[in-house]
């Protein structure tokens, strides 16, 4: 199996839904020049900057990449592949992260707390995660800790019923920390492998609500010393630069251990994970690529980068290795 087809498999069905390729944008830069390449001038650099900024990676990361291109090729006539290689290598470097699988408890239940701003995709991601663990033969308990939003409890309950996993609920308006407490207690009693605690959406600037998260964290920690083993911040892939302050704010309140990048099936490129990686150091653990249970993939920074350049990668592989694309 070739490297690139392996990548395709890693990203799986989700990739087909993504329309996020940078490749087409970059290709447009070279369109006019036909097969003879084009001159790297200020106009070109500006256009490249635009393409990169539109990924949400932020002005400084985008400038870092364009200055690399400028240093190398300025004033020269280049082919698309040369520029693309540089951009890709730089992006790969910016996104590079260790492989970080979900941290599992040595013994007893692994507790995962899921946090994020309003509507980012927390509850749906929890359902997907539960589905994933279930497929690995693990026993899952859910805690419906969003006691604020209307029918949030019902939403997670519907997912739990579809999955056939246990769920702990309390009525709207009750203390989320007590829901978390009950859920972890139940996971311990039932000898479950995984306990996932949902929380209400909140903005990182809302101090008292952030304190509420700290409290949930503390309560869980009191029951199991290493818990929560994971605190996943769910980020909407369309999030712009506010994603950075989200990552900062949530990590301050409850030391986040990783990101779930939801809604990557749109056209948003989720580039904000670049500055988050750089400035906050949080790794991306999963990406969400749809509203169905199966639409969750483990994140692989190589594959993520390659996916952005997908069309061109295939072209190149086709040319280089003499294999037809697909």
């Amino acid at each position, binding site marked *: 199996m070739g490297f690139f087809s392996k990548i395709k498999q890693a990203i799986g069905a989700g990739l087909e839904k993504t329309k996020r390729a940078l490749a087409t944008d970059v290709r447009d830069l070279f369109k006019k020049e036909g097969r003879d390449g084009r001159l790297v001038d200020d106009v070109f650099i500006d256009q490249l900057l635009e393409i990169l900024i539109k990924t949400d990676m932020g002005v400084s990361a985008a400038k870092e990449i364009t200055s690399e291109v400028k240093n190398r090729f300025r004033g020269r006539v280049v082919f698309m592949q040369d520029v693309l290689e540089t951009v890709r290598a730089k992006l790969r470097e910016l996104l590079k992260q260790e492989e970080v699988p979900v941290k599992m408890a040595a013994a007893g239940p692994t507790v995962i707390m899921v946090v994020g701003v309003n509507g980012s995709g927390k509850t749906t991601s929890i359902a997907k995660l539960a589905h994933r663990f279930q497929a690995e033969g693990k026993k899952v308990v859910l805690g419906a800790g969003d006691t604020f*939003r209307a029918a949030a409890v019902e939403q997670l309950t519907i997912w739990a019923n579809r999955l056939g996993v246990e769920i702990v609920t309390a009525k709207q308006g009750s203390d989320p920390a007590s829901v978390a407490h009950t859920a972890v207690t139940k996971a311990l009693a039932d000898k479950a492998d995984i306990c996932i605690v949902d929380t209400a959406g909140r903005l990182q600037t809302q101090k008292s609500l952030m304190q509420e998260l700290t409290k949930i964290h503390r309560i869980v920690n009191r029951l199991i010393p290493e818990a929560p083993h994971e605190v996943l911040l769910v980020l909407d892939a369309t*999030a712009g630069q*506010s994603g950075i302050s989200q990552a900062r704010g949530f990590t301050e309140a409850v030391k986040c251990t990783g990101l779930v990048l939801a809604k990557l099936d749109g056209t948003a490129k989720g580039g904000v994970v670049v500055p988050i990686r750089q400035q906050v150091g949080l790794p991306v653990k999963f990406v969400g690529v749809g509203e169905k249970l199966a639409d969750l993939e483990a994140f692989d920074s190589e594959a993520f980068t390659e996916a952005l350049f997908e069309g061109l990668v295939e072209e190149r592989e086709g040319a280089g290795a003499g294999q037809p694309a697909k």
Partner: protein
Amino acid sequence: MFEALQDKLNKAFRTLAGTARLTESNMREALAIVEQALLEADVGYKVVKDFMASVSAKALGEEVLKSLRPQEQVFAIVYRELVALMGPGDPSLHLRDFTKIMLCGLQGSGKTTTCAKLARMLAKSGRRPMMIAADLQRPAAIEQLIVLGQQIEVPVFADTAAKDPVELCQRGMQHAGLAGADVVLIDTAGRLHIDDELMTQLRRIDEKIEPHQCYLVVDGMTGQDAVNSAKAFNEALELDGVILTKLDGDQQGGAVLSVRAVTGVPVKFLGTGEHIQDLEPFNAEQMAGRILGQGDIAEIARRAMTEIDQDEMRRQQEDIAAGQFTLENFRDLLRQTKRLGSMSKIMSLIPGMGALKGMMGDADVDQDFGRLTGVIDSMTPQERRDPDLIDQSRRRRIAAGAGVEPHEVNDLVKQFDMIGSRMKQMMGLGMRDRMRAVQDLQKQMTSPGGLARQKVGTGKRLTSAEKARIKKDKEREMRRMRRKEREGS
């Protein structure tokens, strides 16, 4: 909202203010800062480029560079261009005898919440709204709308067994006629603009129901892609307006600046919180003012009009007019102000208060107001009517009850005396002057050394230099306000 953008723009204007003579090159420098600030605030790339081109063309003109106050001119240019970029707004729902309004947007953007906010607003204005729960996709979306409907006492047409949203909407419309509703709000499922199947479904609803108004609900935290999706929705449906949500607390919010330029349709409302009353009509001038840090009094006035219990207000005014401004009145006043929304939010709407909030460091204004009412709550009715009764032992009891230091009880009573006499004066003033007096008062209540406790970071006291600076800033702000007042009249 916009704190980060505000800071950077101020930095750009400061660059200009600091230079002895304005040249094209230092102007360009300042404009580059403005450009970067906009990009970092998630304003769409193309929008920024066009905006900067038109600002630059004007700012680099001879008239500006050679004018007496070039900085102010640049400020005015940016303000005007912002207004042109975002406006004109149009907060009207264009109601007729029977109005059908449809909301659409990406997943999780805030459609359902906004639907309920609009319904509440309509009900408050004497309309008879009804909502249709047409999101058959997301688990418990129907229940969510039903719960919200109960909260605001607006009927919801729903059918958990329904499979086809088009058919459901048609039934809903029939029902609305029978039930005597005069505005119907349709809450649709979230969808990606590239999801052909769901976009076709949305078009089908649009064709069969023919809503009079179709609004796109956009998450204010979206980045550069906001532009693409808004454009796609507009192409599919011909939108009549956009509603931006989650603008509370976010420091970026660049979508507000992009969306009009991209879609060509007006921004109607802003969602500024999870609570059902957190909906504001959009106004480009106010928004430009807020972005540049000038606050927005009209918005407070509007809220004050609709949210404050008019009867209670009248009763209080009578009391005060009769010379009876007691601690009890004072507490009610605090509560009423609080009901307008979170204190810190109100502060960010008042000119100059944004900066003041910054000066107060980490002070949690809302908590302070809670503490103040706590102190008054711990008093006996007699003490509230006659604070002179409060001796040392009473003071200790009250402090213990409210969980504060005894001297804070003293401070409160002292400040109250001062405010009380001001309140009595105010009753003799016209509406306009009263509005201004209230602002002054709010300033005093929240300024360092005022009623609210000073809490900078971990509670360190301000140095005298800091205090002097704050005083100067306050005076400058007051001068500015007086000047504006004069110009306005």
